[in-house]
């Protein structure tokens, strides 16, 4: 069984960010830090758990982007993936999901994967679209926000539970090959092990050139992005320590900061 995990490299939200001069994306400098999209860590972990439970599973990780995304492919290897694929796509700045999905599907279509996993969304644009679009381009079934899955390799079926609104769960059965977008909380992503880190660093990646054939024109255009509006609202609580604590609890509760 072959699994492909799609991984996006995103800018570290903790590092200080500036917009680029045309206001269409963030300005990349030598000190801009990137990391693996946290949502994809859960997808990779799920693949690793499937591999541990089923002999004969191999995991490929793929990332689309400029050369710097090789780092997250290596990170994928250091967590235990078998092969790393880098689809070199030099366009900097914002890249609509459709273009990424086109590249992944173009590659995956030739490789006969049984299962493709993505994170539920990307931390930066939060669009949740690359997964479903890739499935559509490959004409394979897709389930999103997956919180549990069970594979039946004999019948080539996969039963999945997806998170719905207000805590409801939907259960569906898909035939393989299929694509799942994995919800956070389904597992606890592991740290890279030392032996895998060392292997990752010496292992050659599979380098693939982006293919622009059959790429349909963009239907979505990014107009501009902006800094969040500065707000200087402060609120000073009054009363005794207990009263203040009560008020604070109410505020946290109203803003859904506490469950």
């Amino acid at each position, binding site marked *: 069984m072959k699994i492909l995990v799609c991984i996006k490299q995103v800018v570290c939200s903790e590092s200080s960010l500036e917009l680029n001069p045309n206001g269409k994306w963030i300005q990349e400098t030598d000190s801009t830090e990137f990391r693996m999209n946290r949502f994809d860590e859960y997808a990779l972990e799920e693949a690793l758990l499937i591999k541990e439970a089923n002999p004969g599973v191999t995991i490929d990780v793929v990332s689309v982007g400029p050369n710097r995304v090789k780092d997250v492919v290596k990170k994928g290897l*250091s967590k235990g993936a078998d092969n790393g694929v880098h689809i070199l796509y030099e366009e900097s700045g914002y890249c609509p999901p459709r273009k990424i999905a086109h590249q992944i599907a173009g590659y995956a279509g030739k490789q006969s994967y049984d299962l493709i996993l993505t994170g539920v969304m990307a931390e930066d644009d939060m669009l949740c679209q690359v997964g479903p679009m890739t499935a559509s381009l490959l004409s394979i079934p897709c389930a999103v926000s997956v919180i549990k899955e069970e594979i039946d390799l004999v019948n080539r079926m996969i039963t999945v539970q997806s998170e719905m609104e207000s805590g409801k769960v939907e259960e569906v059965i898909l035939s393989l090959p299929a694509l799942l977008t994995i919800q956070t909380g389904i597992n606890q992503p592991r*740290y*890279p*092990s*030392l*032996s895998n*880190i*060392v292997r990752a*660093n*010496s292992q050659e990646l599979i380098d693939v050139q982006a293919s622009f054939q059959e790429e349909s024109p963009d239907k979505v255009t990014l107009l501009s992005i902006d800094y969040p509006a500065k707000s200087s609202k402060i609120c000073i609580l009054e009363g005794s320590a207990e009263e203040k604590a009560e008020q604070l609890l109410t505020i946290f509760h109203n803003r859904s900061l506490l469950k």
Partner: protein
Amino acid sequence: MGSEIYFTKEHEMVRKAIRDFVNKEINPYVDEWEEKGIAPLHEIFKKMGDLGFLGMRYDEKYGGEGLDYWYELVLLEEIGHIRCGGIPMAIAVQTNMATPAINEFGSEYLKEKYMKPAIKGDMVAAIAVTEPDAGSDVAAIRTTATKNGNHYILNGSKTFITNGTQADFLTLLARTSDNPGYHSFSLFVVPTKLPGFQVSKKLDKLGMRSSDTAELYFDNMKIPAENLIGIEGEGFIQQMQQFQHERFACMPMTYIGAKDMIEETVKYLRGRIVFGKPLITKQVLRHRLVKWLTEIECLKQLTYHIVRMKMAGQDVSREISMGKLFSGNLLDEMAGGCLQMFGGMGFMNEMLISRYYRDSKLISIGGGASEVMSDILSKLEGF
């Protein structure tokens, strides 16, 4: 600066992995463990073992990573960033104090049965040399191991044993003959689950509070003869070699911890206004800080030099004794000096500097006191 001369991209990836682990799995719990006077070593070591952090240098055959001394240094530097001395010490006991002798002199059987689980984090190890009547003078130990058929019978006691209340096995030095001289001692692997073993006391200490330290008692404890490490009678010499790994581990933990201590202090000095100005503007304090930074850099360079020598297969006892001596002296001066700059606030337990101060004191005492290092060096110099 300049670290790329010594460390490759691969080392840096390993460094980052260990740093992430320390920041997420250790540092958030340190206050709690310091308070409790003990850390859940089985849990911590299991996590570390799964990631391969406990057997960097050891053969892959026993679950190690088969990596070189630079990687070991990366580990020791990164655990130096743990926000206390107790946990790095517990880890270093496992990797650099209780297992090197098994690795270097132990039988296949001992490596499989004890070193492998220690590398995996399934067993906690301790090193048991010091006794109530013998610390600096190791040859004065009185614990005896008497051969009796397929067994040795162990009698005596050990004290100040780090990880002592939790250890699954001890690497222990005992007397196997009454003859004078250095060939009357042997090293053993002592499984603590066998009858006749007792933790007589968990000791209460000035510092290193998250590390459990114990007094141990052996009453006619029967241990299998195959638990002898290497050759009977060679234990003293083997232990002196094992000490080299222990003393080496002190060095990176010292210069990293010391650098962190300076950073804490500078942060405080920038914010503390005295006589109308931030304290950091006082020349006398700044000069003291850079003096220590200079010494920290020297210690780091000596450590890197030692790693190079080790990689070239050279004897490093002289350099390590100097490094251990330097580490103890530096911390003795610096920890008090930094705390002084905090004034009364430094005296408060809530400040990290007070913990550094308490923990630092051990470096010039444990693993061979500074005076013992000086004695070794004097001898090597032929004085």
